[in-house]
């Protein structure tokens, strides 16, 4: 039998949630207005955006790659939606779909270039990030769209069943991805590709197509996040997405999605996004200057990866007879 210590089991099950609850408790006690109805509504919207950004990165991490261009795609999609609404005047739903579609298209470009050249996704998406943003700056002349139609603005302010439509969008996205990884061929082929591309390929998984599709999905999610942020702030400004890279990695990493690929936790990423947005909001209410939030996010990310490493080592140590240090402790799981 292999024994995993109780401490590790407890940590796996409740660790992250406990941290979130403790942070809520701390902020509720010390930050005035944290529990106010308005603040909860506003935190909800921030959480929604932050989670979807994390998911956009998570899907690529799950296949063993990374996407540095999530922010660039989010920014381009937000601007494109802004232009559709203000410049063209299309109906709101079409503009939203247009933004998501733009994201998917840019993601597909990433995917195709990565698969065709066989170069690693870091450097390709670092390059395309700058290509996408650069083109957007040139095309828009770095002008914001500030006069978005009122029914679009309203969508960002209204409540459906007591919470913002952004939260519903996030919940639906999480459910969709959970479903994808939990039980669809595509999702499971993505995980197989991420865990061991050679085995996946020899088992008949079309690895290249899977990678390309994953990048398209990541682009669509980044596009969605861009549109959601647009709804939240009410105007399309070209700097949207400029600071997404860090939180996009932090949310899934905190949530236990392995950077080496093959393992994914939609719920973990949700909790990760929740934690990051909560900390951001709480610190603001405590009048901690905004820039400390970045420091905190960086430290949270560092702590998350270090804890995960320590946990892996602890599991290995408690396991007898298994020599390979690279072996991961448990089967890929999608939790809910």
């Amino acid at each position, binding site marked *: 039998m292999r024994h995993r210590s109780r401490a590790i089991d407890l940590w796996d099950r409740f660790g992250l949630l406990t941290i979130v609850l403790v942070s809520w408790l701390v902020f509720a006690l010390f930050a005035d207005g944290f529990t106010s109805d308005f603040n909860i509504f506003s935190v909800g919207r921030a959480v929604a955006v932050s989670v979807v950004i994390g998911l956009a990165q998570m899907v690529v991490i799950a296949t063993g790659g990374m996407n540095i261009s999530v922010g660039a795609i989010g920014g381009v999609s937000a601007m494109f939606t802004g232009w559709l609404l203000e410049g063209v005047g299309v109906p709101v739903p079409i503009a939203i779909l247009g933004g998501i579609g733009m994201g998917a298209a840019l993601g597909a470009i990433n995917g195709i270039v990565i698969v065709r050249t066989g170069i690693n996704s870091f450097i390709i998406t670092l390059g395309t990030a700058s290509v996408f943003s650069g083109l957007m700056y040139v095309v828009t002349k770095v002008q914001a769209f500030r006069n978005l139609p009122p029914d679009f603005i309203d969508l960002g302010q209204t409540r459906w069943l007591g919470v913002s439509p952004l939260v519903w969008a996030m919940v639906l996205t999480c459910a969709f991805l959970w479903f994808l990884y939990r039980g669809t061929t595509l999702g499971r082929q993505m995980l197989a590709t991420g865990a061991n591309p050679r085995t*996946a390929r*020899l088992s008949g998984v079309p690895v290249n197509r899977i990678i390309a599709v994953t990048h398209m999905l990541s682009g669509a999610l980044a596009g969605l996040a861009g549109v959601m942020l647009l709804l939240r702030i009410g105007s399309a400004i070209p700097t949207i997405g400029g600071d997404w890279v860090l939180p996009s990695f932090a949310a899934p990493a905190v949530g236990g999605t392995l950077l080496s690929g093959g393992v994914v936790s939609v719920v973990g990423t949700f909790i990760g996004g929740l934690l990051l947005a909560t900390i951001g909001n709480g610190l603001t209410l405590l009048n901690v200057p905004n820039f400390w939030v970045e420091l905190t996010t960086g430290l949270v990310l560092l702590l998350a990866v270090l804890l995960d490493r320590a946990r892996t080592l602890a599991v290995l140590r408690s396991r007898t007879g298994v020599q390979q240090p690279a072996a991961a402790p448990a089967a890929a799981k999608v939790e809910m």
Partner: protein
Amino acid sequence: MREVGRPAGTSDAADDTSSPVPQPPVDRDDLQTPALLEVKGLRKAFPGVQALGGVSLRLRAGEALALVGENGAGKSTLIKCLTGLYQPDEGEMLLEGKAERFRSPQDAFDHGIAVVPQERNLVPQFTAGENIMLESLPKRRGIMIDYDRVHREAQKWLDMLGVDIDSRVPASSLSVAQMQLVEIARAISRESRILLLDEPTASISPHETQTLFSVIRALRTRGVAIIFVSHKLEEVFELCDHVAVLRDGRNAGPQAAITDLDRNQLITLMVGRVQVVHELKPRTDGHGAPLLELRGLTSESGAQDVSLTLSRGEILGLYGLVGAGRSELAKSIIGADRVLSGQVLVDGKAVRITGPGDALRHGIGYVPEDRKYQGLIGIHSVMSNISITIWQKLQNLVGWVGGRSERAAVSPMVGKLDIKTPSLSTAVDSLSGGNQQKVSLAKWLTAGVKILIIDEPTVGIDVRTKASIHELIWDLASEGLAILLISSDMPEMIRLADRVAVMRGGRVLGDLANDHDYARMSQQIIGLIH
């Protein structure tokens, strides 16, 4: 779960032999000269496998000792113990009479034991000279590397070997044989007294082999002792003066002078006798029209003009040494490696297989040799590893692969193959080697393939599980599967195959009907290769 390594001296394949192997005469002379290196009773176990079960060796200065044995006999484990990569569990290594333990390859190197491994081990961007001197680059005034001296000294070592390599050319522009020579130069530059060469001639030309041999002979006159690992027996006879044969992790007889043995005796020592295990049920050989037919298949990865036919219910063995191009042929059949010319016919129809997914649609599956990196997804569950081939088939309209239908498809297979796992959601990593191999097989059986290519199914698997995997392969053929069995394990091959195709250098040299007479078949097969 930890599998208990079987205690020393329990029944092993060697003990199961029906009659004793003829023992070569003991070399009296050998026992009187002092040994440079003496290995006594070395044992090393891995979870579930006793890789070395008490191996002894003697090596004198200036001697060339051949280390031979079938795949899995323990040669590479022994080399790794000698060079500090593994720590032996038991036994002694005496260097000039002094007991030593090597903590790392570096430590062994410092003690004068150098290895030229099978894979090249140079920094490709650096020059030959710098690679030779890398460990102790000569410096001027303490910090600045003196490249004139680097190249002067490196060139001196290269010249001493009598090879025509310029110390200033980058390692990346050298041929494989030249890289080996550079590694040898590195070893002698550190005054290594013992040089291990692991299959040095596997991927170099006959002409280069002769250059290598003259270098080795020159080193011997300088007192360097050589341990030469090779499958090519003619090289052993040409180069070495003593031979140690390993079989199943032990010495197959005492170390002998090469002149006391002839070729046939050596082969007999290597392969031993077929172990007596449960008789396999009688089975009719392949029948009917060929299911898989290759016509003049040539692939980018090295298969050369291969023609083979495989019928329903038949086990076709593909025997050859490491590097003979068998796995490459298999990967070309399933479209993982590019086919340059020739035809693949499935069920009599010419098909163009574009990749493993396409091969699956044509009913062909491939169980790779390298379970860990190609056969399994270690961190994923048993269920996921088996059902990977049928996700497409199981999914409903919205793409959902339901837990129940998946379980229903996988469970019977786990039962049928007797896969021992705590649950279907256990990570494959935590199963034993034999059960992992069964999982790797199960995914294709679940997909209902008609043709199964199985590559080295029992490497690193203990004797008992090996027998059960043999039965499994046998039963699958009885059920009508066409099986292409790739193996370097002679007893396995002769036990299971209906016919044996022998490969070397990407070509099929011959196709022998197997009469299951071990002595005759093994002589025939090895005769074809060597």
